[in-house]
């Protein structure tokens, strides 16, 4: 059952990215280009998503089990540290270069776009590099507790 709800969630997430235009890197870059012809659409996507999401997370916070009876895996990390900021800055630079972040890139890959395939392959390679560095203990002062939810 958790497989089906995860599949449904991924599908609806993807529909949202397509409908909002966020699966299109040119539109995302139009938002990031403050000094050019600015397209504010991405801010409206965030507003719509957060309006619905904030109600859901308010509900989720009060629950000890999910609707399907499983454990709630809500993030426990609170620390605002160098890892968080440096990682987010690197991510933002990559986002600004191509206009792709992970979700839209996977959706564009589903559209059989060759360039999306190249981006996703590089992104997964980046994630593997992170895992190797992390495993070697080279990514920071605080080693990550295994499977702690850090979002």
């Amino acid at each position, binding site marked *: 059952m*958790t497989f089906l709800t*995860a599949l449904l*969630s*991924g*599908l*609806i*997430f*993807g529909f*949202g990215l397509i*409908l*909002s235009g966020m*699966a299109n*890197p*040119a*539109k995302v870059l139009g938002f990031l*280009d*403050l000094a050019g012809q600015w*397209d504010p*659409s*991405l801010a*409206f996507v*965030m507003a719509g*998503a957060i309006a*619905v*999401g*904030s109600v*859901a*997370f308010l509900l*989720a916070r009060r629950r000890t*089990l*999910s609707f399907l009876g499983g454990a709630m895996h809500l993030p426990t990390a*609170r620390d*605002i540290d160098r890892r*968080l*900021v*440096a*990682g*987010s800055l*690197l*991510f*933002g*630079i*990559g*986002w*600004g*270069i191509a*206009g792709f972040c*992970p*979700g839209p890139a*996977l*959706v564009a890959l*589903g559209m059989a776009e060759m360039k999306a395939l190249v981006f996703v392959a*590089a*992104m997964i*390679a*980046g*994630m*593997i590099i992170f*895992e190797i560095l992390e495993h070697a203990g080279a990514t920071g002062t605080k080693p990550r507790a295994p499977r702690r939810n850090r*979002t």
Partner: protein
Amino acid sequence: MTIDWNAFTPWSALAGGILIGLAAAIFVLFNGRIAGISGILGGLLRPPPGDSQWRVAFVLGLLGAPLLYGLPFTLPSPQIDAGYGALVAAGLLVGIGSRYGAGCTSGHGVCGLSRLSPRSAVATAAFMGAGFATVYVLRHLIAA
């Protein structure tokens, strides 16, 4: 700053955003998980036993979304201007950065801000700021 009124699509953006929020809502309420794409995908690289199925399902949903969307509607084709070298560099940065910073636009941006998490607010400010700066440098300093 001038607003590009021809490109600006407030209603479809808002409607698409509501769908994204709905997806995040289903995921947290039924699966008890944060719909953060970088975490879901990255977690597949070294998953503890029994932790892969829901991740694969979510990713399959994202990959399959355009196929289903294209049945009743016309599927818009993405415009990807970056060259292959830039795509590789961008992909590497997005992969490393989103895992190091423990989240991306979905996990920190949508879910984190919905949870009023100060940590995610800092992350979102950092990657948005870096995104703005990068596009400024590439389009207005280097290309100009």
